């Protein structure tokens, strides 16, 4: 009986909180990104506005926004080379599956100024959290290999963090620029936007955009995956054709 009363009271405060807090509207400038043969990166904009709560006339800041962009996941492995009898070879490895192929965090201020570590950790906002949850087996090396994997991904521009990536145009409207590198994996990218005020998480919103390899390269890639035998035969015919043509043209 007492437990039920507490639950009801908790639900009431939660409900009241939801009615009171500000909300967020957000969108992505280009929901479909096509990668063609001369693709060398694309910039897209993420923008939105803080909506006032039901009791307010206008939303009052200052607000902070964190946007987390996550690409499709694959199974990845990080390997360490060590010197054995004079030869450098891969000796240790940790698997991370699934691990995002793309992970960027954009924010309007340094993350720890916006909120505390518990909230960042709970929402998996930091890249390290991605490595921690996906590592198999959960060994002692996970921290080290995870950090190295994130470093390698960052070097390719696939992981990153920009603490001035979100700009407020007015007290409530924000915009963020995101530049995608040329070698991203196609699939669905999720953008999760978090609204903070005084260190408290007020609202969360998810959007998405799709990255698609279009054109001839995409066709070749899917053919290699889906019709490997036909793809191989085509390669052989192409080789014989080219060689034959060369032989006929030059007649040696």
């Amino acid at each position: 009986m007492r437990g039920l009363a507490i639950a009801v009271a908790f639900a009431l405060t939660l409900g009241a909180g939801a009615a009171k807090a500000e909300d967020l509207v957000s969108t992505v400038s280009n929901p479909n990104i096509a990668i063609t043969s001369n693709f060398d990166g694309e910039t897209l904009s993420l923008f939105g506005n803080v909506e006032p709560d039901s009791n307010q006339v206008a939303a009052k800041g200052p607000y902070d926004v964190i946007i987390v962009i996550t690409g499709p996941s694959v199974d990845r492995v990080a390997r360490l080379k060590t010197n054995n009898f004079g030869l450098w070879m891969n000796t240790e490895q940790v698997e991370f599956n699934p691990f995002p192929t793309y992970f960027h965090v954009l924010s309007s201020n340094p993350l720890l100024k916006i909120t505390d570590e518990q909230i960042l950790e709970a929402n998996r906002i930091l890249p390290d959290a991605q490595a921690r949850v996906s590592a198999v087996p959960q060994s002692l090396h996970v921290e080290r290999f995870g950090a190295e994997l994130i470093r390698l991904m960052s070097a390719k521009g696939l992981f990153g963090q920009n603490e001035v990536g979100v700009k407020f145009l007015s007290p409530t409207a924000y915009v963020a620029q995101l530049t995608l590198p040329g070698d991203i994996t196609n699939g669905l990218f999720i953008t999760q936007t978090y609204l903070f005020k005084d260190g408290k998480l007020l609202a969360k919103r998810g959007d998405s955009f799709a990255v698609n390899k279009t054109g001839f390269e995409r066709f070749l890639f899917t053919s290699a995956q889906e019709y490997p035998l036909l793809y191989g035969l085509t390669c052989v015919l192409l080789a014989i054709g080219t060689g034959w043509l060369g032989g006929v043209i030059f007649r040696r």
Partner: protein
Amino acid sequence: MIGGTAAFRFLSQPSPRALQIYLPIAALSMNLFFLVGIGAAVGFLSGLFGVGGGFLLTPLLIFSGVPASVAVSSVTGQVAAASTSGALSYWRRGTIDLHLATYLILSSIIGVFFGVATFSALRAAGQLDLVISVAYLIVLGSIGTIMMNEAVRALLKRRAGIVVREKLPSQHTWIHGLPMRIRFKKSKLYISVLPVLAIGLVIGFLGSLLGIGGGFIVVPALVYLLRVPGNIVVGTTLLQMLAMMSATIILQSVQSQSVDIMLAFCLMVGGTIGAQFGASAGQYLRGDQLRFLLAALVLAVAIRFGVSLVLPPADAFSMAVIGAGGIV
């Protein structure tokens, strides 16, 4: 050699003005002229020396940043194209021993099965790059040393004024005493089929694992071990190489999806053109000089692999995608 690699990487990197081509399987953008260019350069050398050029092209691609697995599989396409033009011209001259080629082809395709299976297993274990480097070091190092030794001796003899007769000793070795003898009419040979099959098996395995046609191994093996006549050996080897490389392309496509058709095509076009100029340039050099240069080149590639194995890597950590779609 290391500085050369850095310059090489710079050339192969995407630059906004140059014509970039996206390689769908390697998943990287490369300069079209760079790819056709190294195809042509290696094609020139292969025309000059009468070799397939896979042993140069695969390392060059690896050193310029193409994943080893994609480099090995895609170069097979270039070798297939190069051996087609070669085999075609020997076919017109009628200097191919079809009977001998059939035995070599069948055994080399069995070797290819083992080679491709080993390739996949090594890649999954993360040891493919290491094995490719060690195998290149051993194969090219030993072949290069033998060739260099022979070429230097020939050069010294010529300088001393001794007339070198390029005639093989006619005595029989233990190889000619093996059972299951077969008559190869075109080659005028009556020899055991076992060494023929063994040569095919070994070259099929090595060729598919390392992305080489293996002409520089098969030709000496057929000439020195089996006494196949010089006018027959090249055309027969080219035909065998064509069949073996075709089988490798198909098996690699099915097994590891690491054949990049775009990369292979760029290399083929460059290689076919380059080979023509190499073949005409070869007429101005003497045989022993050519062999000396080829030996030096083979040794240089072997040393480059040796250095990469011994020197500490720029980055001890690496990453790879595993499972479906995992190429890098």
